[in-house]
């Protein structure tokens, strides 16, 4: 029963990702991407990683996707943008990326056959994650915080100039 849930969620994740990356309207693609991320969160929960599942929903499907929504709303691409996107997605552009991705996938699948194993069926609780995070991995937490600070400063720098120019034009 639970295994069926797993494969169902996996199917939904694949289908939603495929649909998301072939849409012409960015807002529609974003909704499909959110569905895909929620399905992956279900996979995490079923594999016994409830903390990762919660973070996937809160940060990936919540915060990061909301950033995308804001930017798509600010850009306001409209109908001619969708038409142009449809033109770029013509069939002959698919051949080379499709073949390259298929070859890479084939190699990955061939490499996977060598290692038979199953997931342990033991859930890793948030308490264990927290103890490991602020024990042996505390340096990684510091580095991640530095990375987020750099991202914050960079995004502020890029966005600030955008806002200032618009005000000056008025």
């Amino acid at each position, binding site marked *: 029963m*639970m295994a069926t849930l*797993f494969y169902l969620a*996996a199917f939904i*994740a694949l289908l939603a*990702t*495929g649909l998301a*990356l072939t849409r012409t309207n*960015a807002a529609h693609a974003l909704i499909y*991407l959110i569905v*895909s991320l929620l399905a992956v969160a279900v*996979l*995490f*929960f079923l*594999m*016994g*990683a409830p*903390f*990762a599942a919660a*973070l996937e929903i809160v940060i*990936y499907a919540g915060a*990061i996707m909301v*950033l*995308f929504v*804001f*930017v*798509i709303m600010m*850009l306001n*691409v409209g109908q001619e*943008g969708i038409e142009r996107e449809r033109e*770029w*997605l013509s069939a002959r*552009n698919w051949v080379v*990326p*499709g073949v390259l*991705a298929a070859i*890479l*996938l084939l190699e*990955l*699948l061939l490499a*996977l056959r060598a*290692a*038979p*194993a*199953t*997931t*342990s*069926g033991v859930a*890793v609780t948030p308490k*264990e994650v927290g103890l490991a*995070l602020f024990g042996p991995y505390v340096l*990684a937490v510091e580095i*991640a915080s530095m*990375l*987020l600070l750099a*991202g*914050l400063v*960079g*995004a502020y720098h*890029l966005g600030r100039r*955008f806002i200032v120019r618009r005000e000056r034009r008025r």
Partner: protein
Amino acid sequence: MSGLQIPMEHVLALAGLLFSCGLMGLMLRRNIIFMLMSLEVMLNAVALAFVAAGAQWGQADGQIIFLLILSVAAAEVAVGLGLVLQIQRRFKTLDMDQARRLRG
């Protein structure tokens, strides 16, 4: 709630499929917003592989690497979307083939 016993090949094959989807999207699309979305899909697939590996050994390390990937994705998206706004303002398009000059 205890976890499920799933064959690792199936989980890793799913991660590989998602990664290939993201890679194909990255090569196929010319709109920078879709390229950023494809990057998100690829990072997410890698995170799935890490969490699956953590679940195989019943250790917390997989989820910790997932956290680090999450912070990388957040920082990358913040800077990337700032760049999207700048590109739209300077080139009046989202086509990455138009944004060729390094010094705008």
